[in-house]
């Protein structure tokens, strides 16, 4: 599974980071980025949790 954060949609809610700090980093201005190339299978549920909690619909699945 590969995911990305759309920088134009991200508004810095940091919900992804607070729920899945293993997968996301947020800079000083709130911009979130994915820090893994491939989501490890054991963290796929956490990735889906982050996706389903983003109020801006900014996290996309690139490949399952």
């Amino acid at each position, binding site marked *: 599974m590969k995911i990305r954060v759309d920088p134009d949609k991200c*508004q*810095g*809610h*940091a*919900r992804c*980071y*607070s*729920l899945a700090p293993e997968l996301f980093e*947020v*800079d*000083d*201005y*709130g911009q979130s980025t994915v820090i893994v190339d491939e989501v490890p299978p054991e963290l796929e549920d956490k990735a*889906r*949790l982050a996706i*389903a*909690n*983003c*109020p*801006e*619909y900014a996290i996309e699945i690139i490949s399952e």
Partner: protein
Amino acid sequence: MTHTAPVTDWATDFDVMDPGYLKDPFTIWDQLRQSCPIPHTDRRKSSWMPLRYDDVTAIAHDIEHFSSLKVAVIPADEDEDPNENWDGPSLEYGLPPISADPPLHTWTRRLLLPWFSHKRVDSYVPLTRELCRSLLDGFADKGHADAAADYAQQIPVRVIARILGVSTDMADTFTEWVRDVLEFADDQERRQAGVEGLLYYFVDQLAQRKEHPGDDLLSELLHTEVEGKQVDDGIVLGMAALVLIAGVDTTWSGIGSALWHLASHEEDRKRLVAEPDLMPTAVEELLRAYSPVTMAREVTQDVEYAGCPMKAGDKVLMNFPAANRDPEAFENPDVVQLDRAHNRHVAFGSGIHRCAGSNLARMELQVALEEWLTRIPEFTLAEGEEITWAGGQVRGPRILPVVFP
């Protein structure tokens, strides 16, 4: 004051300060969402109030038609000037970035955000934890407490004072000023007293920091250059006032509502004590179910939105709390599910005005609950004692008597 007359038709004459609404807005939202999801009122000022998630988020993203220059839910009697709500010494720029549109919004927000980044907020955890513990020391042995006044109310104001670099001895005075501005805004005299207190205090603090800068937020703002120019004193004053106003009532209300929920829902309280790993999703769920904050927008030009003829100058009350209870967006929205997986709540707003202090608020809520549940894992509402709720701009319990073994 005519706007305090009883409400007979919520679709055309709503009142967010109605006593019944303050206590239980949820039933009214449910009825309106089905019959009239964007009710209107002429009380105080011509205002619309979207209640559905999709409408609230769409309007929050449409900054062309909906300006943030006037964000007060309760406008001043003469709401003609952009800064009328915050009348006082030189608030010529309002309270940027919250009461600003781009471009002022954009660069003032960038100055504030690093102070509330999750890394910076992590460094505030020890002092927040210590503060919660010392408050609990004050009443944990007594068997009863006012969870709002003795605990929730005491936490955010002291953390924000430390960030601003001002004395925590002023906490009670800060609280009073912020309540005057946000909760008692219908009382023009009281509102004015709060605004003046805040502004004269910060004018003095800023003057001191010009002479003797420290390592606090106020000092940094005063000594920052943007595009080669020092930030205008009026902008720094507005930003300082904003950080205090936005950082006190809001989070305190969130902590109070969460404690009200746990005091009145035994199963959830027991579950959170038994499963502390639930805390991150539980915090988001409590924020969703009891979102404290409604912010206003102002219509910039006549526009028809979802069949509503909105006129330039009308207010739109961005009811984020109601959006978070919309059954179209959340399954069983009125049921708190501490492990709710799908939860795109907008307690901190949506779009470019997402609460700049959301990391801080979330941390304070989590630490306040963790410390309370560690020390007082069993507690219930005190039977027969009245609970009071504030509402309008910020909803939360103000008197919350609880008992414990």
